[in-house]
């Protein structure tokens, strides 16, 4: 698995599009913090966790990175390049596990880098924060990274399920998930269910779905510890689906 991870990391780090995406997010973190400092957004902000919540660069990363990874792994099927990293009898399983580790690692790395850019620029602009909110911020970053990983792995499962145009399916799936279009649609659909099913379905969606949790986090800034477990389970489900389907999938 480590060999495949190394190979995947190599091609990620040699992808121009990846660096363009990261540079775009970094620019947003930098320019956005200038805007943040000059406007009413920064009024009453005492902790870095609150500043980061209002700035929303991590939320943007959470929305875009799964789409990127859906394309990254989907194009492995479209271009047949998955064949190049399957090198032994356990190749397919190693591929999925390496993908999960790479996705999580890369998302955490990018989110940490964006946070550093944001913090340094706010410091440059004269903001100082107490260390009180550090733990809250770390939890928040962790939750967003786990949500993004779960989104990416669910989208990757879609690419594996698709018989053709895997990358397109992955991108579309990830976009629908992270943009909360599917979530909103499901909530509207739940509204038409007979009582009390409508209320139960809506509560289930807002409490247990990734989008519901992300939306609550965005609104309140408070992280529930069980969210990590919930998102990790969804990510694990994505890994399992990928592994099960890839086990017998024809590599065209």
């Amino acid at each position, binding site marked *: 698995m480590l060999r*495949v991870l*190394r190979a995947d990391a*190599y*091609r990620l780090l040699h992808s121009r599009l990846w660096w363009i995406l990261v540079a775009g997010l970094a620019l947003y973190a930098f320019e956005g913090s200038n805007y943040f400092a000059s406007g009413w957004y920064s009024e009453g902000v005492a902790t870095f966790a609150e500043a980061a919540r209002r700035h929303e660069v991590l939320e943007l990363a959470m929305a875009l990175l799964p789409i990127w990874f859906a394309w990254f792994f989907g194009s492995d099927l479209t271009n047949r*390049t998955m064949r*190049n990293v399957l*090198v032994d009898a356990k190749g397919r399983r190693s591929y999925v596990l390496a993908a999960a580790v790479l996705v999580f690692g890369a998302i955490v790395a990018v989110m940490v880098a964006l946070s550093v850019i944001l913090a340094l620029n706010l410091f440059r602009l004269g903001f100082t924060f107490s260390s009180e909110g550090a733990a809250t911020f770390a939890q928040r970053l962790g939750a967003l990274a786990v949500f993004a990983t779960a989104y990416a792995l669910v989208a990757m499962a879609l690419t594996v399920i698709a018989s053709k145009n895997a990358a397109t399916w992955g991108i579309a799936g990830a976009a629908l998930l992270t943009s909360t279009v599917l979530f909103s649609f499901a909530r509207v659909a739940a509204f038409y269910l007979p009582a009390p099913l409508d209320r139960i379905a809506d509560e289930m969606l807002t409490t247990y779905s990734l989008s519901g949790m992300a939306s609550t986090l965005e609104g309140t800034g408070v992280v529930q510890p069980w969210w990590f477990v919930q998102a990790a389970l969804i990510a694990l489900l994505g890994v399992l689906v990928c592994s099960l389907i890839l086990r*017998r*999938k*024809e590599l065209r």
Partner: protein
Amino acid sequence: MVALTCENLSRSFWGKLVVDGVSLTLAPGEIYGLVGRNGAGKSTLLKMLAGYLAPSSGRVKICGEVLGPCQTSAHLGCLIEQPAVNPSLSAFQNVMVRALAQGLPNAKEATAEVVRAVGLDPALRDRAGRFSLGMKQRLGLALALVGEPQVLLLDEPFNGLDPEGVCLVRELLVNLAETRQVAVLISSHVLDQLDRMATRYGVIREGRLVCEVTTDQVAAECTDYLCVETPDAPRALAVLQQRWPAVAFTVMPDDAIRVGARGASETAPAVAGMEAPTAEEVGRVLLEANVSVSGLYTHSRDIEEYFVALMGGTAPVREEGKEGREGGGGNA
């Protein structure tokens, strides 16, 4: 040790058998040419051997390692259907990804070596997305060769290559087979290239491996022979057999007489220790016996003609409603 073995490998799609009980064995250093018509099941067979497709039944063994369905081996290098090229990476980076996945200790050196071997070094740093078909094919070969595999599975490796590239790849494969004892299985329609490198052939027809022949057998089958066209074939045949009793004469379906060569299905030499008569001698004998001759010529049977006959002639590739297995003769 045997490099590659497959036993009773079958695959059906939607109830239709595409590969039907194929068994074959490749020894180290052997170059095996797999020939067959479009849709005969060659690529499907190669995909199953490579672990890209699960067989419906049967077993694959590579260098002694039994592979499960959709499992590949560290000893395998493959180029099947189209090269697996990442268009956003350079040629070097594409091969480097595979070298890293293989865990090669000197991944950079190994990558540079195979890229040079396939003649892609001038385009080493160019993005593969801008490559021509031939360059992508070379890159696909480099991907198959990196890591010094013991078995190579190549599907149309000459596709899109320029004459220089064809020559380079052919020499490279022959060299690998001779010096490193790499077993090479090539599926190709370019029979004259196969003819220059293969040590054995397998003919696949409607999913079945209908025969296996050595290059010596092919060479013997493709020798020139004398052909006599006459309106009175039975009499001409009698005259010729009387004059040259030790020489084989075969009346062909079009009533032409084939002189001094084996029949289509024969495998033993027709003329043991005796030279076949020349065209002049045959003509003179027939004229002396007052047998009119309408044609007397040397027939050249090339490898293409030979394999076309083995592959099932020139009939339509897929006849409507024909599920037939009647053409197959089982594994030779």
